[in-house]
């Protein structure tokens, strides 16, 4: 059993999921992801408890806790809050010290972050005003085509001729899907078109920051292999996806917590 005083936690409360990571020095000893649900406060307590339970720990064993994500201020047990932008930079920097760019696509927004040499934010850009370019956009499109959100990425890889999706507005794109289906387009080509259009949008946004090697893809949408493929094509370089891309924000928060003790 490691010294308890070295154990810290990062909690990332996103729009779609709540994540927690427990770190002992530089080692991740437990992590967990749950849906955020309607109560951000309850989600924070629940994800923390379930993560602690994995290692038989209690809250008293954690010497410092940092919350991040949209719901960060609702985490009553946190010692401090930090934005998820800093946390994703920190988390990626720990896993891949030579990485200079993070593409983070979550349920509610997307961000491109330049990592400075010391692992902090160099520069960043966020999507604005609408759901296009976020996980929510993909969820809506999957529902329209009666498909499982976890499968649409691999379906898109089989599209030989990606459809041209002209609307990046979620609502208009939804009606465009219906039209394409009515015209007999295959699901594969439609999903390929959707992923391609979304990747295009994220890359246009990210160009203001720039994509420098190595590029790491984080957030829940990074589990979508279709999105990774289309982003790579648009960026023109290999993109790395961590084993658990969803927990990178929480990991970053835990790293900051570790540095505080």
């Amino acid at each position, binding site marked *: 059993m490691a010294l308890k005083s070295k154990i810290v936690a990062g909690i990332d409360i996103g729009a779609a999921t709540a994540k927690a990571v427990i770190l002992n020095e530089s080692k991740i000893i437990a992590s967990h992801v749950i849906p955020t649900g309607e109560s951000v406060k309850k989600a924070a307590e629940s994800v923390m408890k379930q993560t602690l339970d994995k290692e038989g720990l209690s809250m008293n064993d954690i010497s410092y806790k940092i919350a991040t994500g949209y719901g960060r201020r609702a985490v009553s047990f946190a010692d401090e809050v930090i*934005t*998820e*932008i*800093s946390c994703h930079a*920190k988390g990626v920097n720990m896993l891949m010290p030579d990485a200079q760019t993070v593409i983070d696509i979550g349920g509610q927004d997307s961000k491109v972050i330049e990592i*400075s040499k010391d692992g902090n934010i160099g*520069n*960043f850009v966020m999507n604005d005003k609408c759901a296009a370019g976020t996980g929510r956009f993909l969820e809506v499109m999957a529902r329209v085509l009666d498909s499982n959100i976890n499968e649409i990425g691999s379906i898109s890889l089989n599209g030989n001729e990606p459809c041209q999706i002209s609307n990046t507005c979620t609502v208009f794109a939804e009606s465009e899907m219906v039209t394409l289906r009515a015209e007999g387009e295959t699901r594969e080509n439609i999903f390929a078109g959707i992923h391609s259009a979304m990747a295009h949008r994220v890359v246009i946004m990210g160009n203001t920051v720039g994509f420098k090697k190595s590029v790491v893809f984080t957030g829940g949408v990074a589990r979508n292999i279709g999105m990774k493929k289309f982003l790579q094509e648009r960026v023109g370089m290999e993109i790395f996806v961590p084993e658990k891309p969803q927990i990178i924000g929480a990991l970053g928060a835990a*790293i900051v917590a570790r540095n505080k003790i």
Partner: protein
Amino acid sequence: MFSEFKKVFNNRDNVAAEWKKSGNKVLGYFSALTPEEMIYAAGILPVQLFTTNLPLTETKTCLPDFICTHLKDCLEQAMTGKLDYLDGSVLAHACEASRGFYGVWKLNSGMPQSHFLQVPATSKKTSRDFFISELKIFKSFLEEMSGNEITDDRLIHSIEVYNENRNLMKKLYELRSFSDSSISGSDIIDIIKAGLVLPKDEHNRMLENIISNYHENPDIDNDQGDVYICVVSNAIEEADTVIEVIEKCGGHVVMDNFSYGMRYCWDTVESGPDPLGSLATHYLEKIPFPGKFPMAKIVDSLTGMAEESDADGMIWLVEKYCDPYMFSYPAVEIKAKEKGIKMMSIEAEEVGNIPRLQIKVEAFMESLMDEII
């Protein structure tokens, strides 16, 4: 201490109504390039037109989307009767949209009298000569509207009142810069806004009062771990929200560069026997207004102010479709980077979404900290 200023601004219609009781006129103006001194010298109350975030209904049929919110909102106010207390308006040429907008404004606003003031983009001798001739036309417009002759003596007196206002505002900024200052960035915004709807001599009296009664608050230490921010903006209506967020996140607004903030009071108008010439020089040369040329001079001035105030970062708050600010941004960003000052741009339309605004501002401030984490 500062609530009086907020109250004045919120009741600005009453201020104008009070002024009109004595038979005097009220003139609405759009831009910081308007020489208010001339309006005041004519015995007319100059009132800045503010964005009020009205739902745009009437203007939808008159204006294309690519016009900034400020102009659209002002037209909406006029078309829905909210500016009926005005006796006229003046639109100074601050951007290309304003030139096209003027025709639409004249046709649809219902203003009894309107004037378009040509303001050259450069400060060369020929531009100054041209501007003086334009100021003479504006002078005639004001004289006709008020029935008062704008003599040199009246203009010189008006310039003195406005210079006093600039000096008092500068003094206030000085007090604000102290580490234990009890004046917040949001207080400054309230004070500026009140000054744009009140007769300037009245604003001066209020400023003298707060300056003489000012005392430090030893419980405040603005130097503790703060990130120093300079805010540049043409959207003073949204600036208070952004400043509140900056201050809540532990930032300290050490410099602002709003159309009517430090930029407005940085220099006084030269006093002398040729008041019209002094005004021309001031409005063409002394105000670092994005969109004017040479751009390098504007860029140096904007970044220089941030540098002098030891700002770690600059937040560029701009209205959507504001071409002078948007075209200036890349050049300012490059120069700021050379000086080691990071920049971030926020569109005024984003300000309504506070959680997103908080993330952007907080993340920007985290990126400025040496040892944040």
